[in-house]
C-alpha cells in the first residue's frame, strides 16, 4: 500500500515535470475521446431511428364502416395466424379520432372539424410484422382471405412511396455511419496510442539515469514501471476531463437541433438520462488508452 501510494505520487509528479509533452498527449487524447463519443452517439442515433421507422411502417388495414364487430374479430384472428405477423391491434373509429386529436396542434383542429361532420375516420387493424421485407407478400395474402372483404384499403396499397426503399436507405446510412465512425475512431485511437507511446518513451529516455539508480538501490520492477503507467493514465484522465467539458455545451446544441429538426426525443433522452454512465465510459476509455500505450512503451524501451 505504501509502495502503491509512492508509485502513484511519483507518476503524478512526473506528468507535470514535462508539461509540453504532456500537453500534446492530453490534447490528442481529448480529441480521440470526443470523436469516439461522437460516433458512438451517431451510431446509436441512426439505429434508434431505424428501429422507430421500422415500427412505424408496419401494415395498417382500414375497415369499412359497414363491417360488423364479429367480422372484424374474425379478420383479426385470421390475420394473426398469418406467418410473419407478430401482433394485430384493433383501432376503433373513436380511437382514431382521439389519436388525431392528440397528435399535434393541427391534428386537434382537424379532429374537431372531423367530429363535426360525423367522424369520417375509418376503424383499422394495425399489423406488426416480424420482418419488414415481407410487407408486400403479407398484404397480398391478407387481401386474399375471405374475411378480408371488409378491408377498404391498406397502408401498403395507398403508399405512393417505396417503403422498402426508405428502409433500405436508412440501413445504408446506418451502415455508413458505423463504418466511417469505426474507421475514424480506429485511426484516432492509433494516433493517440502512438503519441502517448512516444511521450512515455521520451520520459523513459530522459529519466534513464533515475531508472538506473532505482534499479541499483533495489527498486522492484513495478516500482520502476508503475509511475509510467500512472503517467499514461493521467493523460487519459486529463483528456477525458477536457472531452467531457467540451461535450456538455456541445451536447446542448446538438440536443436542441435533434429535438427540433429531427424529432429524436428518444435518443436525446437516452443520452441525458445516462450522462453519468457516458462520462464514466469516457474516463474509463481514456485511462485504458493511456495505460495501454504506456505499457507498450515500457515493454519496448524499459529493460529491467
Amino acid at each position, binding site marked *: 500500500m505504501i509502495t502503491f501510494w509512492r508509485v502513484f505520487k511519483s507518476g503524478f509528479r512526473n506528468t507535470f515535470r514535462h508539461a509540453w509533452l504532456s500537453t500534446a498527449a492530453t490534447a490528442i487524447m481529448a480529441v480521440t475521446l470526443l470523436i469516439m463519443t461522437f460516433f458512438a452517439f451517431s451510431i446509436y442515433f441512426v439505429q434508434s431511428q431505424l428501429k422507430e421507422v421500422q415500427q412505424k411502417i408496419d401494415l395498417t388495414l382500414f375497415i369499412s364502416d359497414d363491417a360488423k364487430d364479429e367480422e372484424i374479430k374474425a379478420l383479426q384472428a385470421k390475420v394473426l395466424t398469418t406467418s410473419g405477423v407478430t401482433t394485430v391491434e384493433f383501432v376503433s373509429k373513436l380511437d382514431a379520432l382521439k389519436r388525431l386529436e392528440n397528435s399535434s396542434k393541427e391534428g386537434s383542429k382537424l379532429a374537431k372539424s372531423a367530429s363535426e361532420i360525423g367522424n369520417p375516420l375509418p376503424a383499422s387493424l394495425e399489423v406488426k410484422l416480424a420482418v419488414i421485407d415481407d410487407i408486400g407478400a403479407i398484404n397480398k395474402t391478407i387481401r386474399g382471405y375471405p374475411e378480408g372483404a371488409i378491408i377498404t384499403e391498406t397502408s401498403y396499397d395507398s403508399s405512393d412511396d417505396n417503403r422498402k426503399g426508405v428502409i433500405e436507405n436508412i440501413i445504408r446510412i446506418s451502415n455508413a455511419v458505423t463504418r466511417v465512425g469505426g474507421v475514424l475512431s480506429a485511426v484516432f485511437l492509433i494516433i493517440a496510442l502512438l503519441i502517448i507511446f512516444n511521450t512515455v518513451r521520451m520520459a523513459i529516455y530522459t529519466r534513464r539515469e533515475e531508472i538506473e*539508480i532505482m534499479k541499483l538501490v*533495489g*527498486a522492484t520492477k513495478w516500482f520502476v514501471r508503475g509511475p509510467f503507467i500512472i503517467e499514461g493514465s493521467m493523460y487519459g484522465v486529463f483528456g477525458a476531463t477536457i472531452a467531457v467539458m467540451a461535450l456538455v455545451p456541445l451536447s446542448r446544441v446538438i440536443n436542441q437541433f435533434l429535438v427540433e429538426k429531427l424529432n429524436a426525443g428518444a435518443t436525446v433522452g437516452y443520452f441525458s438520462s445516462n450522462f453519468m454512465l457516458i462520462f464514466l465510459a469516457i474516463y474509463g476509455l481514456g485511462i485504458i488508452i493511456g495505460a495501454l500505450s504506456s505499457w507498450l512503451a515500457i515493454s519496448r524501451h524499459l529493460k529491467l
Partner: protein
Amino acid sequence: MILLDRVTVIYPNKTVALSGASLHIQPKEFVTIVGASGAGKSTLIRLLIKEEDPTSGKIIVGSIDYDTIDKANIPHLRRKIGVVFQDFKLLPNLTVYENVAFALEVSGVKSSDIKRAVPKILQLVGLSEKAHHYPTEISGGEKQRTAIARALVRNPKILIADEPTGNLDPKNSWDIIELLLKINRFGTTVVLTTHNKDIVNALKKRVITISRGRVVKDEKVGKYSI
C-alpha cells in the same frame, strides 16, 4: 561471504572480460581489488550486483547462489548489497536527505522508519548539516558520502565501492577511505576497487590484483603493483 569459482565472462563481440577468475572473500573483510583499466574490475562488480551474468562459473554471495535466484528476487538481492560508484549516481532533483531516503522508499519501508533511519546514517557519514542541500550544492566528497549513506541505510552485509575516490582530491579521498574503514569496523564487508597507489599501499589490507581477466595476485597485506 563472496565466492567466485572459475568465472568467465565473454561478451557477444568475443571480448573476454574475465577468464576463470576465482576468489573468496570472508565476511567482515576489507578487500581492495586493483587492476589496469579493462582488466575486468567493473565486470566483476556488475556480476556481484547481478547486472550481468557470467558465461560460465559459479557466484555465491551470502547464501545466495546466483544461478538459482529468480529474476523477481534480484531487487531484494541488491538491497542486501550496498554499491558506491565513482560518479556517485545521485538523483539531482532530490536533496541529500531525499536521496538517502529514496533507497528505503523503493524497498517499501514505512515513512516513520525512514524518518528515524536517515538522520542517523547522515550523522554517521557527517552530513547532518547538508541534509537539505541538493547534489549540485555540495562538494565531490560530500556527494560520495551521500552515496555511501544511501548504500548503508539499509544495513547491507556487503558494501561495494567502485573507484569511489576516482573523482576526488587527495584530502576528500582519504576522508572517504576512512569512512569505509569505519564502516568495515562496524562489521560490513567492504570491497573496494581503486587506481590510487597511495591508498592501496597505506591501507595494509588484503589486495587482489586482476590482469586480463585473471586473478594474478592475492596477498593478505598487499601492495599496489601493476
